[in-house]
């Protein structure tokens, strides 16, 4: 065989078929498919010889090619209908695949241009903003007189402490998971809210509850806990005239 086999470079059967048609400088039509069918089959045979796992897709396409060829050999098959025979589905698919490939080439060109252009990333913005802030208020060095060595030591110490305390907390569990900051559960939060309610005896504001939360997760948990408590009529909620939302212990 005179053609070069580049086994790994084909993305799939369509890619291979397209390559064969291009290599033989044929147009995409039924006749070309007949012409390259033999080469396609030889290619698959070669793959088998080399003990390559042939993906089922290659076999499916081979069967399609053989079917086309067989049909063309049947006498009288084409005369049944007037006018030119309809294009086989495979031809249509191959034509479309050709369009995809040409588009891919254009996208590649665009990508190539794009790769040479650079933009300011989000990081640089933060940097600039920090400088602006520094300029506005005279800089005060909170670490004045502290050596870098001491700082590193302190950091290392606190890191170890944190690690130890985290380990203690999860001792019962087999594995240590790092969930970042600890978040209280809805149940815990519900209890917390009830405690505050009994302590405050009167109303306390929703804003206070949310403001006391350390992060977004905790805010969400607190909100869910609140809804749960309202549902169970453990607490009551009302809105004051100045739009404050007030929480009060419900009558059980």
């Amino acid at each position, binding site marked *: 065989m005179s053609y070069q086999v580049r086994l790994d470079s084909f993305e799939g059967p369509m*890619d291979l078929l397209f390559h064969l048609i291009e290599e033989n400088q044929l147009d995409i039509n039924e006749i070309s498919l007949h012409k390259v069918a033999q080469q396609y089959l030889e290619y698959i045979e070669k793959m088998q010889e080399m003990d390559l796992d042939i993906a089922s897709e290659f076999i499916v396409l081979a069967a399609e090619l053989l079917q086309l060829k067989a049909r063309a050999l049947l006498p009288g098959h084409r005369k049944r209908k007037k006018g030119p025979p309809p294009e086989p589905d495979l031809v249509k698919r191959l034509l479309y695949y050709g369009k995809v490939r*040409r588009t891919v080439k254009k996208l590649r060109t665009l*990508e190539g241009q794009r790769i040479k252009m650079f933009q300011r990333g989000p990081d640089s*913005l933060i940097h600039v903003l920090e400088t602006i802030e520094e300029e506005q208020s005279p800089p005060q060095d909170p670490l004045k007189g502290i050596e870098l060595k001491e700082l590193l030591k302190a950091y290392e110490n606190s890191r170890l402490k944190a690690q130890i305390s985290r380990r203690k907390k999860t001792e019962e569990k087999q594995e240590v998971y790092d969930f970042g900051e600890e978040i209280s559960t809805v149940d815990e939060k519900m209890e917390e809210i009830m405690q505050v309610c009994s302590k405050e005896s009167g109303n306390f504001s929703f804003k206070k509850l949310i403001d006391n939360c350390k992060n977004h997760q905790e805010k969400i948990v607190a909100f869910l806990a609140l809804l749960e408590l309202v549902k169970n009529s453990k607490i009551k909620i009302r809105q004051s005239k100045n739009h404050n939302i007030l929480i009060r212990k419900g009558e059980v």
Partner: protein
Amino acid sequence: MEQKYNIKAALEALLFLAPEPVKEKELEEALEISSTKLQETLKSLSREYNEDPNRGLKIENIAGGLIVSTKEDYAEPIKKLYQPKVQHRITQASLETLAIIAYRQPITRAKIEEIRGVKAEKALFTLMKKGLIQEVGRLEQTGTPILYGTTDLFLEHFGLSDISQLPDPEGLMEED
């Protein structure tokens, strides 16, 4: 209304800091100017940058927003000085899949596989991970297959202002 500052200079400042494409609406609000005024200022500023060979920057309309980029001629010295994070090109298999999605979205995996004649799972996974495509819904038919579409990052990757700016579709959008 009297302006406190030079609008064109202010616009330049805003665009200079933009970490990602800024929407025109956002610029109008920040500068407290009308859409017409923004267009006018933008046009004049863009012309100054984009057409003047003595400028290394240009103002572009990408993914529905405006951003300042360096002109492509200066990639070499930029790389030399800043060693920017290497942006990987998309592989052939992924790019074929991406092209099909871009022109035919929303589209199911089965349809992509039918066109390419090969499994698309891996390509879809890679494209998802890179944030170039996303799930845009489910097709209402048996199995409710996922429909895929492209993201803003896709537009940014190829420097397109919107999906209609894709290179000559050659009938790629039509049903084959």
